[in-house]
């Protein structure tokens, strides 16, 4: 399966040149760009591992791309995403978040149903990635 989290997941994989243009857009808006990675893309896994701190003072998209490529080299089979934070009052949150690396095989999720009262069902999604490697696979 293909996980479609992120701003551009329905498009063909972005080239480095395209990534650079998006990063430039973010820097032009004064957003702080950061890089995160994980092996568990569960839709409610909010906190992916940080690849360093958000790059608050960086002005050159090439520098961000260098960091992305370092992260890719270290975790070629992880999901890697680029986010951009806007510190302006009234936002103070992410303004964009897009995937720049995926594992060669995306195992996806299993849906578990627990039948409860009446016809009600409690749903739980399990990441297949975590089922096969349950402990600390981020390390």
């Amino acid at each position: 399966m293909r996980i479609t989290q992120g701003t551009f997941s329905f498009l063909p994989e972005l080239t480095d040149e395209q990534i650079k243009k998006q990063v430039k857009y973010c820097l032009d808006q004064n957003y702080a760009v950061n890089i995160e990675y994980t092996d568990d893309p569960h839709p409610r896994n909010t906190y992916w591992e940080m690849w360093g701190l958000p790059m608050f003072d960086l002005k050159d998209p090439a520098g961000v791309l260098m960091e992305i490529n370092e992260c890719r080299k270290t975790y070629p089979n992880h999901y890697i995403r680029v986010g951009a934070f806007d510190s302006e009052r009234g936002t103070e949150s992410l303004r964009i978040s897009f995937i720049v690396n995926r594992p060669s095989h995306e195992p996806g999720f299993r849906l578990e149903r627990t039948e409860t009262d009446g016809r009600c069902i409690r749903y739980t999604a399990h990441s297949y990635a975590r089922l096969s490697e349950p402990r600390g696979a981020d390390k």
Partner: protein
Amino acid sequence: MPKVISASDRYKAGVLEYKQMGYWEPDYQPKDTDLICVFRITPQSGVDPDEAAAAVAGESSTATWTVVWTDRLTACELYRAKAYRVDPVPNSEDQYFAYIAYDLDLFEPGSIANMTASIIGNVFGFKALKCLRLEDMRIPVAYMKTFQGPASGIIVERERLEKYGRPLLGATVKPKLGLSGRNYGRVVYEALKGGLDFTKDDENINSQPFMHWRDRFLYCMEAVNRAQVMSGEVKGHYLNVTAATMEDMYERAEFAKSLGSVIVMIDLVVGYTAIQSMAKWARGNDMILHLHRAGHGTYTRQKSHGISFRVIGKWMRMAGVDHIHAGTVVGKLEGDPRTVAGIYDVLRETYNPKNLEHGIFFDQDWASLNKTMPVASGGIHAGQMHQLVHYLGEDVVLQFGGGTIGHPMGIEAGATANRVALETMILARNEGKDYINEGPEILQQAAKSCKPLQAALDTWKDITFNYESTDTPDFVPVATAVA
């Protein structure tokens, strides 16, 4: 200037002009804590505009048709609303903008019902006026702070959904009436799996013989959860909990919560108090609250009489809804571009500067209330994506009902076409392309690697709704969006 009369004359039994009763004060300087309204008034022929404005001030605050001595037991000067300015409406012969200030103590804290019972109460049936329209309202920060505001708000909604950087996508399940629960859930599943973030009950889907509410909720949540694991994204279906009584609405909302829904929905016709109750419930239960504006067209559309939708937008943000239908500009429903821009600003900005060209008559500080997400729904399709992004921006839900479900290759393909068109346009915008003018080519280029988008563009290429708008700002030449 009104004649100044002594208190003993003022309170003689009988009927006085409203101006003489103290409701017309042209020298009045509104206080920071005053609530200010601007009404469009059309006096009956022969009625002086200043007197008509004073009458509106009187009838929407303390006055009755005759003098009452019991006024003298109160600090009545304070409680009288004060008409302080009357301007002729540009390009109109018999209409005037009347500015009226109300003291903060006229209103119960945090109650839309109380505020509106004065401001749009008896006064709207007052005989001395042919027509009356509430155009805009400045809510003082002191009063604003007594309202909860949106239960979740745009920022928290995006964080909960983990969706950033683009408008959200939705679709209303069609046909709106007649599907069984099982068939209804099929539409939800296909649309969400295809790439939409949300699907939606229509305003009149509650609990009818063809599909009772529990059945709908159960099948829809099966569909939502299946789509989540098929995409790895958080998805939602606006479960409409509108019902005959608050007890029924709470019961339905609780059931939606127990099934794990991230969002519930109500209709504007449930009334202001019910809306505030549901907003309070939503804040207490981590729920996003969607509001369908069913019924508003009966009083917002005509310029001469009623309430401008920008005012309804303000009240609904204060009342605490997270989503509200607010116009598409290019779709099938009423929506002049500048008027819609004004409404979107009211919902999304932290501070609105006065902007007469967009119908905003006052500076408005939102006092840190959350932002409400506008929803664009009604006759829009993938081929208009460049215009939608241009007119409506990023913080908006674009809802393609027919534009998803009517796709020739099926619902999933329809959803994919919309999502690809949207992501393509955002990518192009961020890259600095002239996406408004190059929009059609950008979409055609993207369609080369996306058959569903090509089919959507081919099917709906010439569909536009170019009718003249009725609700337009008075301070600029009228313009309607051109496709």
